[in-house]
């Protein structure tokens, strides 16, 4: 899931200054899970902005719309006919897809999108994947050293690993400590003997926005064009 957190209310109010018609967009997928931008949060933001508008005489017209997934065009059709400003509580992907679909709208981010991860406990969400495009989880007992090691080391821990914690923060477990423990449990410690070569970073962020094509799913002539590029 994509992890996001709510922007401070003061920042949101500042961004909305000068708006008239405001639609608060909630998303029932990732941002709902991390309690930043689901249906409940959209309702809450609507009430908050309405209260502010009434107190300060701003005459804002505010309504919430929550969709299943703001990052897919089919799901944001309920926004057809919306005018003015959309305060998106969906992740950065959702906000951009909405902007792409409805260029006349002014889309404003209501959340800060931070990472890809998972809930670790109630209210705690931790980054698990950096989306590097060259997965090596089979060599590291299913624990990603790119995302979960502060230095993204590929062949064992650094000298700062102490008592299973990272030197960057005592709250952060050392990824390589976890990897070694996990490999021990699996009886695969021999994998530590295997040198992981320097990573090929080309599939990662370095080449600009990445595009993934499943040629089989591409319809018509476009499929041939994509096959030719393979």
């Amino acid at each position, binding site marked *: 899931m994509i992890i996001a957190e709510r922007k*401070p*209310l003061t920042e949101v*109010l500042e961004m909305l200054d000068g708006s008239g018609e405001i639609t608060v967009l909630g998303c029932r997928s990732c941002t709902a899970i991390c309690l930043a931008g689901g249906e409940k949060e959209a*309702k809450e933001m*609507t*009430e*908050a902005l309405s209260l*502010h508008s*009434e*107190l300060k005489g701003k005459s804002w017209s505010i309504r919430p719309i929550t969709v299943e997934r703001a990052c897919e065009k089919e799901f944001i059709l309920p926004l057809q006919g919306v005018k003015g400003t959309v305060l998106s509580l969906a992740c950065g992907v959702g906000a951009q897809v909405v902007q792409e679909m409805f260029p006349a709208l002014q889309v404003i981010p209501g959340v800060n999108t931070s990472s890809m991860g998972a809930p670790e406990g109630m209210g705690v969400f931790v980054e698990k994947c950096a989306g590097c495009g060259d997965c090596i989880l089979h060599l590291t007992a299913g624990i990603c050293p790119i995302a979960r090691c502060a230095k993204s080391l590929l062949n064992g821990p650094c000298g700062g690993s102490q008592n299973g914690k990272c030197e960057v923060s005592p709250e952060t477990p050392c990824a390589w400590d976890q990897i070694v423990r996990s490999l021990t449990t699996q009886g695969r410690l021999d994998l530590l003997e295997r040198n992981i070569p320097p990573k090929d970073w080309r599939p990662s962020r370095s080449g600009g926005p990445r595009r993934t094509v499943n040629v089989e799913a591409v319809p018509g002539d476009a499929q041939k064009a994509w096959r030719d590029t393979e």
Partner: protein
Amino acid sequence: MIVCYCCSRSGMPAALKAMEVGDMDDVLLREVPCTGSVERWEVLHAFRQGAEGVLVVGCLLENCAHHYGNEIAGRRAETLEKMLVDLGLSQGKVVMVHLAEHQSHRFRQAVEAMRATVRSTPEEER
């Protein structure tokens, strides 16, 4: 009007006893199964509907039948307090009260404290 979200196990019995004594015409009770179930949007909506102050009245700490509903409610009240200030209201408009069902006097004290806060609020913010 002071809106009180009262836990059915503690806050509501205490509030009902306090109401019997009288002088509570400006108090609106809303019974909830646990204060942890009171959502932020509900409280914000109450202010939009004319509430001058909100009390969230739940069980004593470590005495919640739902384990930590009252703790969540307390943290939520703190968040709401900050939100309301950002939105343009003055401080002290949302208060969490922890009490047991026989402590109707604590409910009354909380209502009186909220009345004092509301009275000290500029007219245009009420």
